[in-house]
């Protein structure tokens, strides 16, 4: 597994290094925000859309 420390060594243009606790905190908040949307699942408009698109494709090819 690549660690943050290894990444920084390989990247000479890196900005000032953040502490791991700070990075962890940022990562938690980022994922919490993102997962809030992910956890809403698939809104019905998208399942309907796929069904509709599938139907149109069948019509075209017949």
């Amino acid at each position, binding site marked *: 597994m690549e660690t943050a420390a290894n990444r920084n060594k390989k990247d000479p243009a890196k900005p000032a290094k953040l502490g791991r606790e700070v990075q962890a905190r940022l990562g938690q908040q980022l994922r919490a925000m993102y997962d809030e949307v*992910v956890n809403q699942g698939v809104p019905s408009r998208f399942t309907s859309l796929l069904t509709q698109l599938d139907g149109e494709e069948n019509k075209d090819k017949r």
Partner: protein
Amino acid sequence: MAMDESVRKSVLSAVPSLRAFAISLCGNVDRADDLVQETLVRALANIDSFQPGTNMSAWLFTILRNHFRSEYRKRRREVEDSEGHYADTLKTQPEQHGQVEFREFREALAHLPSDQREALILVGASGFSYEEAAHICGCAVGTIKSRVNRARTRLAELLAIDSADEFGPDEQTRAVLAGGRD
């Protein structure tokens, strides 16, 4: 030919994450859902160009990102501002997509340049590798790494997170973040 059931499944399973990514790009739930819809229409119209066995999610993210970029370029002629405009968009969407507890973080995220924000989201939240994120954004892996690093540094500044003591130790979380999200 009817849509392959496995294609349908893999497209649908990517939708929740596509929505989250789209919201992070445009800062507006309704616009984001339209963006996802346009992405799915384009993807299925070009499903023949998808290579079976490759990452469907990454393919869809690439389409969404490119579509957003081309739309955004059109609009930018009217609003020439890559940072402030997004922030303003958020302000006009009060708590529409989230809890108050994320407000400060979301505002800080909105102040990042868009290329840094998208790199951070792809790697730090969507769970893509640096290589996949580079492919989605059409740039070098080193560029993605540098954008993610700069994004983290800037976020920490904006949120005035400078003391590790505030958070207390959490070895597991540290290990997860240090290794990306995979």
